[in-house]
């Protein structure tokens, strides 16, 4: 076989694989979309792969109102904003101290962060549950904010990777001008860590948005639904209306997909920096 033929075949194989992979990813989403757009009577007449004859947005309207999804979005937004502000503040502080100074027990602290990362959050809920209750935070959004601040430690490693790339000469020249360490943190480190903060904020937003178990456990009141629990509650009452459940699923899934398509660069950087330690 000539080299050229071999290259052509290989190129074709690559594209066929990518297209096949793309179809496997998109097929479930496509099926969800065309069926969410079918009225009940239409879905009785048509097979699950047949296109609706006319687009019926009724399911989306009913899902939005019936699931109180507007409220769920607001609750989620509130928790995301508080957690992200806290995470970025605490994360940059820890990274500054660990990344720039030597002090006793630094290794222990770093090791604690590493170990905690491998403790599956759900397992410790058996014990965390009591702590949250004794703090009087059960069934409030602050239980979740506290939990997200305390257990999402991957961000520390993302920040540490970034801070090593900020030249120490910047700190030193600021010190020659008499800047305090706090001033250096506030005026040099924090602003220069912005790309890392963007990454942390996006990853944290996605993680909180997609988390089901913590809100399910700590915020059982129906008025405190976040997007995941609000969607989860469709199971049961709406079981006879699969098209409605699909509409609700798309309402919940699509905003983050759009956010992701806009901000891919930060997400990929964060995924890699969070998983791979230098």
């Amino acid at each position: 076989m000539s080299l050229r033929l071999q290259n052509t075949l290989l190129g074709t194989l690559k594209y066929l694989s990518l297209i096949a992979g793309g179809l496997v990813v998109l097929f479930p989403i496509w099926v969800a979309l065309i069926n969410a757009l079918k009225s009940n009577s239409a879905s009785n007449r048509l097979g699950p792969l047949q296109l609706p004859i006319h687009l019926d947005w009724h399911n989306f309207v009913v899902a939005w109102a019936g699931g109180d999804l507007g409220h769920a979005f607001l609750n989620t937004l509130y928790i995301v904003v508080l957690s992200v502000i806290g995470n970025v503040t605490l994360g940059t502080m820890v990274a500054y101290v660990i990344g720039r100074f030597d002090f006793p027990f630094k290794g222990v602290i770093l090791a604690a962060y590493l170990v905690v990362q491998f403790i599956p959050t759900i397992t410790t809920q058996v014990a965390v549950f009591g702590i949250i209750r004794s703090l009087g935070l059960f069934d409030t959004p602050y239980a979740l904010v506290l939990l997200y601040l305390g257990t999402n430690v991957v961000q520390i490693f993302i920040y540490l990777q970034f801070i090593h790339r900020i030249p120490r000469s910047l700190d030193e020249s600021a010190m020659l001008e008499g800047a305090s360490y706090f001033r250096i943190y506030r005026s040099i480190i924090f602003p220069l860590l912005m790309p890392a903060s963007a990454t942390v904020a996006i990853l944290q937003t996605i993680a909180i948005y997609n988390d089901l178990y913590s809100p399910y456990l700590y915020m059982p009141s129906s008025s405190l639904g976040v997007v995941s629990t609000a969607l989860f509650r469709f199971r049961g009452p709406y079981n006879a209306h699969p098209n409605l459940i699909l509409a609700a699923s798309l309402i919940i899934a699509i905003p983050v997909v759009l956010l992701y398509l806009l901000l891919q660069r930060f997400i990929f950087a964060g995924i890699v920096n969070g998983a791979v330690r230098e």
Partner: protein
Amino acid sequence: MSRQRFSLSYKAQKAVLIAAFLILPIVLLATLSLYPALKLIFYSFTSWNGLSPRYPWVGLANYKAIFSNPLLFSSFGHNFAYLVGGLIQNVVALYFALILNSKIRGRNLFRAVLFMPFVMNAVAVVFIFRFLYGYQGALDALLQGLGLKALEHDWLGNLSLVNWSLAFVSLWEYFGFNMVIYLAALQSVPHELFEAAELDGAGRLQTLWHITLPNIRSIVQINLLLTISGAIEAFNIPFIMTNGSPPTATFLTNTVNVAFVFNNFGLASAMAIVLLIIVFVVLILQRWLVGIGRDAV
């Protein structure tokens, strides 16, 4: 003289700053991660019901129960489906990363599509697949349309199949994550290596086996570690799909149900400890294998 004064004040500043910046993060880490982990050990020797102020000591009874009650320990069998799915997931992820790492048109578009499931809400993903897998549902309709009627199944109703159906959802949702990590690793392999291999007349498979894979060995190990611990901790998909009912229960859905449905926090804590030990054994094994790998190179 003034320099002296400054360096002293920086020294004092440093102590204050370290204390001030670390106190809150460490308190949070300790109360929400480390202390609960220790608490678990204590609970695991009691029959605490989660509410009572009494913690009746039962010794090792909870641990014995885990290994003697077939319903509890055998749920690891269901985790096995996620483990196999996870290994396939890594092969698929590496395959697509290799393709995306070559000069190819539409690279960013394909990467964006393949990673997309990872950012989708887990509840939404499971609901969509529940529809897809439904009895005579969309998947069966697709198979029929492709002339593969023989492959039609009751994907969720068939008890020997259901965990594999769920493991596929996991693969679908998470392979993009592994792919992005593999892709970053491949991009950091020096180009000269491939050029040298080409000059030596190495074939594609030879290059993959002798140049590419050894250079991303540590990334392969990280991905495998994440995959294996993910399989041991499989929770979301069976929990959302079936509330962790017995045919699909994993060890972790059982742990959670034992605690929060059956109020047996003592037994659940013992299960959590067993799970943690397994995860850390895997972690240590991985570190050890990395060590061996380094020596061998």
